[in-house]
């Protein structure tokens, strides 16, 4: 039986790609059109600040699916194509240039874009942001051995970038306006560990420091600090957060609240439209609240959820948020989004850069962060999922077999 329906996906990245794949995996035989404004097939963003910036991987190898695989799945990918409007009454979208495409079901996976730094000189050549493959290729082309690189923002992207640029032979300076690193995501103890770790690896970290402006004659030459001091640098990378791309959905009248509001099955307020990935604000049953995530795992798994919902096979999606980051030789992983814990327990030794810190609330793990210890973190995730009662003392004790705690 052929199916004459057309399902359209706006945003050809991780979430959008998984929506398309899921439609096929679930047996959908209609037309699938995946539209994206970038010039590349859906690719992994994590390497952008890591292996791809180092030049260790090719662009092709970051693709989730090669062209042949997409062809085989009969997914029509339209790159370099920006969608300009969604007409919900006509059930059509409009692309740049005015052409319209009719849809039976629509998925919005438009992700997020970087927050721009609104200061003088931010448009000088040499000042970069980091979100896309193009950004990474441009930074790589501008990096020279021995150059001074100014990283604005001491969050995940900034720290990864500082590590990678240091490896590339740059002198990396990180300026962070807050008084600690990654302040929104980790405890003060972990911030301190990060500070020490980066400093030991040659990164010049300056906390409680903003910048006043960028200066240079047709090309970045220095930054000016609020007191008037200047630091010479030839490149700057700004990593001060992202903004969800909600405008299309907003203009079409869908409900927006720090992201496109969806239910646990990735459905928007319009029964024919789903949304997934960095752009959504979704309920998380395990945490008992609504969240918007910027993570690889969420883009994939919510994308799969959205694809199923388009086929009326809706399945609730709720999992413990999980995120990782690679900085120098440290693999950091986080689970949960702990907000109010009453105890922390650190297993392993911070000084040896191999440990995991658990956050406990009423004897139940509410989140954890690990450095070079993904295994104990995984067990922690299971303990958290199962809401198992544990004590800080047993988590800290090296004699405790983590796996054994699961069997309770």
């Amino acid at each position, binding site marked *: 039986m052929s199916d004459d329906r057309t399902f359209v996906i706006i945003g050809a990245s991780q979430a959008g790609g*998984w929506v398309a794949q899921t439609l096929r995996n679930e047996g959908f035989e209609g037309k699938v059109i995946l539209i994206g404004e970038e010039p590349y097939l859906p690719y992994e963003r994590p390497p952008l600040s890591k292996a791809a910036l180092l030049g260790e991987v090719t662009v092709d190898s970051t693709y*989730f699916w090669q062209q042949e695989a997409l062809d085989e799945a009969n997914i029509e990918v339209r790159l370099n194509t920006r969608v300009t409007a969604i007409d919900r009454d006509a059930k059509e979208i409009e692309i740049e240039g005015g052409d319209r495409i009719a849809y039976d079901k629509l998925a919005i996976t438009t992700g997020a874009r970087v927050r721009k730094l609104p200061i003088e000189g931010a448009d000088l050549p040499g000042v970069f942001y980091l979100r896309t493959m193009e950004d990474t290729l441009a930074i790589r082309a501008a990096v020279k051995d021995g150059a001074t690189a100014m990283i604005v923002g001491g969050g995940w992207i900034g720290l990864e970038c500082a590590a990678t640029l240091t490896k590339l032979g740059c002198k990396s300076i990180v300026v962070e306006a807050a008084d600690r690193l990654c302040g929104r995501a980790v405890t003060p103890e972990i911030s301190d560990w990060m500070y020490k770790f980066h400093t030991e690896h040659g990164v010049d970290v300056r906390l409680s420091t903003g910048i006043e402006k960028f200066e240079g004659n047709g090309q970045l030459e220095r930054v000016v600090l609020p007191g008037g001091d200047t630091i010479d640098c030839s490149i700057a990378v700004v990593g001060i957060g992202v903004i969800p791309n909600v405008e299309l959905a907003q203009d079409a009248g869908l409900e927006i609240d720090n992201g496109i509001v969806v239910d646990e099955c990735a459905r928007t307020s319009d029964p024919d439209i789903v949304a997934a990935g960095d752009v959504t604000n979704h309920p998380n049953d395990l945490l008992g609240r609504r969240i918007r995530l910027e993570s690889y*795992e969420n883009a994939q798994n919510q994308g799969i959820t959205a694809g199923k919902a388009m086929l009326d096979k809706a399945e609730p999606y709720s999992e413990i948020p999980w995120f*990782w980051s690679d900085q120098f030789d440290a693999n950091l992983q986080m689970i949960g989004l702990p907000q109010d814990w009453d105890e922390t327990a650190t297993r392993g030794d911070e000084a040896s850069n191999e440990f995991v810190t658990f956050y406990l609330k009423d004897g139940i793990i509410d989140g954890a962060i690990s450095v070079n210890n*993904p*295994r104990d973190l*995984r067990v922690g995730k299971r303990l958290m999922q199962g809401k198992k009662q544990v004590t800080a003392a047993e988590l800290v004790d090296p004699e405790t*077999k983590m*796996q054994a705690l699961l069997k309770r």
Partner: protein
Amino acid sequence: MSEIEYHAVAKTDEIMEEDVKGVFVGDEEIAVYNVEGEYYATHGICTHENVGLADGFVEGDLIECPLHSACFEIKTGKAVNPPAEIDLKTYPVKVEGDTIYVGIEK
């Protein structure tokens, strides 16, 4: 037909139940598992990216990759959830006394 040669890779008490250990046979990296007292072996590197599964997490008869959480069936090597799509190679295993042997094609 290619012949299989067995190599001693570990002692049985080195791998607890629901645990995994990474071993090398020549240049081949192999992950050896204990599922309910039976030993199994798969290729040691995730088929998604270049990450050692010995740092992964065994749950029941699945191994979960430590990097992006793909799961594989330990007994068959089948990739059961994304991002991995390619199955893992598996190897025959035999135990003699307290020694675990993994069979590799010559």
